[in-house]
């Protein structure tokens, strides 16, 4: 009896341990979902991170009345524009433009900012945030309205309906989006794969098809395997000290996407080599023998018989690599910098999605909502990649059995 009790106690401890694992995964998922889900929308994906400031004049001052059929928010029938109250991804309360009627004076705005852009037409779009409006009211006094006076959308609309002419508008384009970082991440994936794939596949072919068991080949293999044990932050140090001179040839002056991509290429090498090798091992020797006995040379055999058979392995390597690049942060902090760029270029600094999180999480006031929203995107990509890898892997094992 006491042994039975002891056994079930031990068993329930293992149940508890497994439950802890589920608990951790569950709380991570729930945490990022609760905090980030409300920010996930199309605007997040297509907006710039930094909002631009505009100081504009309304060209057409003659007032007529406008109709608003079914538009949301507070509609100013005098100016043909409607406003709503919104909260940005930075947790800031703003008044943003919801609707602009046709022929509304707000369609034709000219820039008042001194410099090259002075006098140019600024297109007003839905989502722009009104900070301050200088206007002359019906009694001829100058007045101001907008967020600067802690007004809400309704108060702004009432002030505008009372205005006889508008002197200037100070507004901001919507920010807090991740478009720049998304593009930078894609560049990063492309660059690292373009460099890493050929080197990785060729190395795997050498190790599996040519290499005998000599000491030198053992060293080669050992060298590649040691790469897996190096922490990624050390790769970052390597990137700036070894690979930086390479990127200056392409016009980089400091941290750049190119440098990040080159560094990632080295980080990915062991992953790609291993998955290609695993696929090469599965290809039956009889296929190679058949090809060779038909008179094909060794290189012909490799390119026309062996490699087509291990496409699944290469695909697995690519998918695992993409996951790794999206999640990588430590190595990239050194090589790509932490400045969020809205228009990333290959030889300039930018942030990938992970780096973007790091960039504003290490700031004075961490923005948890946006961090969680990006985490959701990263996690779902990684999750999808994992599932695809599993499906590809199953097909791989079916091929020759």
């Amino acid at each position, binding site marked *: 009896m006491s042994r039975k009790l002891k*056994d079930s106690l031990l068993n329930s401890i293992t149940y508890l341990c497994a439950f802890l694992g589920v608990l951790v995964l569950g709380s991570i998922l729930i945490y990022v979902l609760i905090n980030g889900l409300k920010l996930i929308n199309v605007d997040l994906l297509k907006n710039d991170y930094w909002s631009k400031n505009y100081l504009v004049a309304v060209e057409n001052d003659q007032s007529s009345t406008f109709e608003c059929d079914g538009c949301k928010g507070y509609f100013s029938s005098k100016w043909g524009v409607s406003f709503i109250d919104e909260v940005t991804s930075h947790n800031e309360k703003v008044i943003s433009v919801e609707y602009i009627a046709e022929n509304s004076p707000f369609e034709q705005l000219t820039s008042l900012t001194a410099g090259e852009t002075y006098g140019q037409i600024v297109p007003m779009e839905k989502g722009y945030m009104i900070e301050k409006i200088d206007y002359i009211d019906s009694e001829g006094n100058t007045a101001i309205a907008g967020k600067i006076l802690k007004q809400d959308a309704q108060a702004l609309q009432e002030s505008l309906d009372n205005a006889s002419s508008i002197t200037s508008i100070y507004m901001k384009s919507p920010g807090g989006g991740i478009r720049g970082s998304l593009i930078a991440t894609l560049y990063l994936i492309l660059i690292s794969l373009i460099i890493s794939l050929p080197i990785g596949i060729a190395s795997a072919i050498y190790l599996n098809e040519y290499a005998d068991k000599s000491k030198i080949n053992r060293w080669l293999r050992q060298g590649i395997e040691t790469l897996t044990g190096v922490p990624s932050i050390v790769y970052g140090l390597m990137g700036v000290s070894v690979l930086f001179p390479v990127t200056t040839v392409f016009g980089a002056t400091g941290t750049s996407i190119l440098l990040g991509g080159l560094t990632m290429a080295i980080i990915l090498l062991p992953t790609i080599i291993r998955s290609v090798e695993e696929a090469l091992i599965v290809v039956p020797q009889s296929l190679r023998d058949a090809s060779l006995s038909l008179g094909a040379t060794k290189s012909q055999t490799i390119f026309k018989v062996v490699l087509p058979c291990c496409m699944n392995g290469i695909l697995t390597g690519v998918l695992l690599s993409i996951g790794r690049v999206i999640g990588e942060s430590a190595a990239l902090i050194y090589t790509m910098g932490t400045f969020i760029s809205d228009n990333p270029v290959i030889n300039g600094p930018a942030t990938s999605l992970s780096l973007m999180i790091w960039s504003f999480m290490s700031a004075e006031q961490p923005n948890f909502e946006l961090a969680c929203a990006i985490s959701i995107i990263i996690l779902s990509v990684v999750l999808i990649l994992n599932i695809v890898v599993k499906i590809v892997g199953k097909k791989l094992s079916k091929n020759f059995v």
Partner: protein
Amino acid sequence: MIDASKEKKNKLIDGICKTFFLAMAILSSSFIVILVLFIFMKGISPFLPGYEFGQVNIIDFLFGTTYRQDQGIYGVGFIVINTLISAFASLLLSFPISVLCALFIVKIAPKKLSVLMKSVVELLASVPSIVYGVFASGLIVIFVKWLASIFGITTAGGSSLLAVIILLAIMIFPTITSMSITAIQAVDKDLENASLALGATRTQTNFKVVLTSAKSGIFAGAILGIGRAFGEATAVSMVAGNKLFGPTFDLFDITRTLTSTMLAGLKETSGLDYDIRFSVGIVLLFVIFFSNWLLNSLKNRIGKNS
């Protein structure tokens, strides 16, 4: 005649291909040499006489107990101790849970639950460290703050040694578990059957025969796990708090690890403050190398005893 020239051409192509493959393999494996070489060259430069930003005393660097970038005092002695403490403590916390979880997956769980748990472990392994960092600085610190308030201690917003330990324990859990799963699956069926035939219960067999026969593989998982704990950078930096002096033994006090030091206040890309990060990188590589060597020899000793 045509055949002969074609054969010659084919042989040439074959030769070129082989050389290309060999060259790529040599390139791939030479990266580790280049990596170590360059980091060493840059990392020891601050200690050499004639260093442009003012030579640093290597003894002060290795055994110093203060690290202040603003005052130009760089001592990593206490950081090494902090790193060892946080890594081994997280291993201590994570190891039993991981091993028992692996045992559950392979031997105890019903088939469907076992498949589900395996996916959970795989998912945890694929969560990027930056997401763990967000989770840690959002949720783990709140837990630590709450725990500290029970003891009547105030923490620096929850950033503390304990938060680092919990975070690292979570991060190395999937590594150790998946290695242990492989090790437990490889245990000889005959051993189990022998144990069962002698009258031991299923559970006794699992705990006394299966786990002890798989200990070599489980230990390898622990070594892999602690390697990850040493090298983890971004997530740890988010909750470590970067103490200026140390070492930290108090669970609720902020701490500083080698990796968080390398990331802290990274702004310029030249000067002593930048170069010294390479020196810290060398120290990190040494710490990883030595603890691997130590644990490996321990593993061999344990393996011999059985």
